[in-house]
């Protein structure tokens, strides 16, 4: 134990017309408190299923998901989620969007206090002055920043990020990576990031988990012991380049391309 997120022997299959489709097979991942876990794997390997299991929106056929030493049996109020699609509510202002989780989790909190909290976060991600804009008036990167604020406004102990930077252009994405590091300093959380971008996983993750192809199991775990905000340059050090090469090879194995090396 000791891990805030503990995924133990999780096996799950979807029921389809053609019979059961196994997506996760004896998956084991442990994420210590305050740590950032990046999960990479071939597409369609069940990564999004994993996020729904952790959020308590689905339950595994076998195995257990533990959060904070408690077995996940239903959705919990201490989870934050952000997706590739920022899913902001178009009829609310940015500020009101960020407040949304507080309305569910802390309905009795005074409105002013909710707004203060939201403003604080928006200014952390550089969105001051945009509080009263509608989502449609913001760029894609700004919307994703607002979505990140919404996912942590209620101080969740677990943050689930399902490819939140996937649809952004390369420069905006790098900006947001740095924002993530800055947020971690001021708003500590334990995070699980699903991503297709190996550079992103190395830059953000304290550990990178490579999942095998479907049905996914834990194929490889890489620790990246480098605390504190990381400079973007770290991606270009020989050490990181080497790590990226290792990860790339692991992905190829997961895709079943280099069977010889998998053995």
């Amino acid at each position: 134990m000791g891990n805030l997120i503990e995924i133990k022997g999780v096996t799950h299959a979807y029921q389809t017309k053609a019979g059961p489709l196994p997506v996760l097979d004896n998956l084991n991942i442990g994420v210590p408190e305050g740590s950032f876990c990046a999960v990479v794997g071939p597409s369609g390997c069940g990564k999004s299923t994993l996020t729904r299991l952790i959020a308590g929106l689905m339950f595994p056929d076998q195995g257990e998901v533990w959060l904070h030493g408690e077995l996940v049996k239903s959705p919990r109020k201490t989870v934050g989620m952000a997706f590739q699609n920022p899913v902001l509510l178009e009829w609310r202002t940015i500020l009101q969007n960020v407040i949304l989780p507080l309305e569910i989790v802390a309905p009795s909190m005074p409105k002013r206090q909710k707004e203060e909290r939201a403003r604080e976060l928006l200014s952390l991600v550089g969105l001051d002055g945009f509080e009263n804009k509608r989502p449609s008036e913001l760029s894609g990167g700004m919307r994703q920043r607002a979505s990140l604020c919404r996912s942590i406004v209620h101080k969740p102990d677990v943050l689930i990020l399902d490819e939140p930077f996937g649809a952004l252009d390369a420069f905006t994405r790098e900006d947001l990576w740095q924002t993530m590091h800055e947020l971690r300093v001021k708003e500590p959380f334990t995070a699980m990031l699903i991503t297709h971008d190996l550079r992103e996983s190395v830059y953000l993750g304290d550990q990178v988990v490579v999942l095998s192809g479907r049905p996914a199991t834990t194929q490889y775990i890489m620790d990246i012991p480098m605390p504190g905000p990381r400079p973007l340059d770290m991606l270009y050090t020989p050490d990181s380049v080497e790590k990226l090469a290792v990860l790339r090879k692991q992905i190829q194995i997961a895709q079943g391309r280099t069977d010889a090396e998998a053995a």
Partner: protein
Amino acid sequence: MQGNVQKIFVPLTAIVVLLILWEALVWFMGWPTFKMAAPSDIWPAFLRFQPMFWEYGWQTLWRTVAGLGLAVLFGTLIGMIMGLSRIMNDALYPLLVGFNAIPKATVVPVVALMFVGQHDFNTILIAFLISFFPIAVSVAIGLSTLEPEYRDILRSLGASRFTVFWKIALPKTLPEFFGALKVAVTLAFIGTNLVEIITPHGRGLGHLFQSAQINSDFPLMFAVLIALAALGIILYYIVVALERIFAGWADRTAT
């Protein structure tokens, strides 16, 4: 400000131009009033029967609005049931389509026999029956096409189905709802007049139209049609105003 002037001035000009062309056409062709009445015949007809226009117009208006109100309530309810439950959707959809396909003119005598003498009730019932379908379908589609992520952001916090519906699904459906309401408002109007014309009970603009027809007062018939058009425009723009208030966020060109 300039936009507002344009919004009022341009349509008014169009109406005036239309009236002038209409008048000129009738004068040029030398049509008698039973073929086509000119605006200059219609206006005196309106003035002559003005008190009736107000009285009957009001009867038509309130019964249409009542029918439409029922259609909104019932249509939203059916739409919610269909949008939130796959099974109910499969069960109700063919029934609704079939019901909608029945010409409502044939339903009017049936309803009139079912509720003999209940004129207000019959009229409201037909206005309601003819106009709830688009509302039900739009609400059902709006709810069933809600992206799962929208649900997940609240469900993952332990929010109830009702909270998800109230905070996300319902407001997100509003633009579709108002689109359907614009269709429904004219349909309800047709429903009301249908009853007023088919079943003689001496109420509403439809009745005025019928008496004009019986008395061969052709300018009055045209005057009723114009009055109906005017009422239709008013109702329609009330819906547009409501849409601005409740779903104005969906209009990307406004700001």
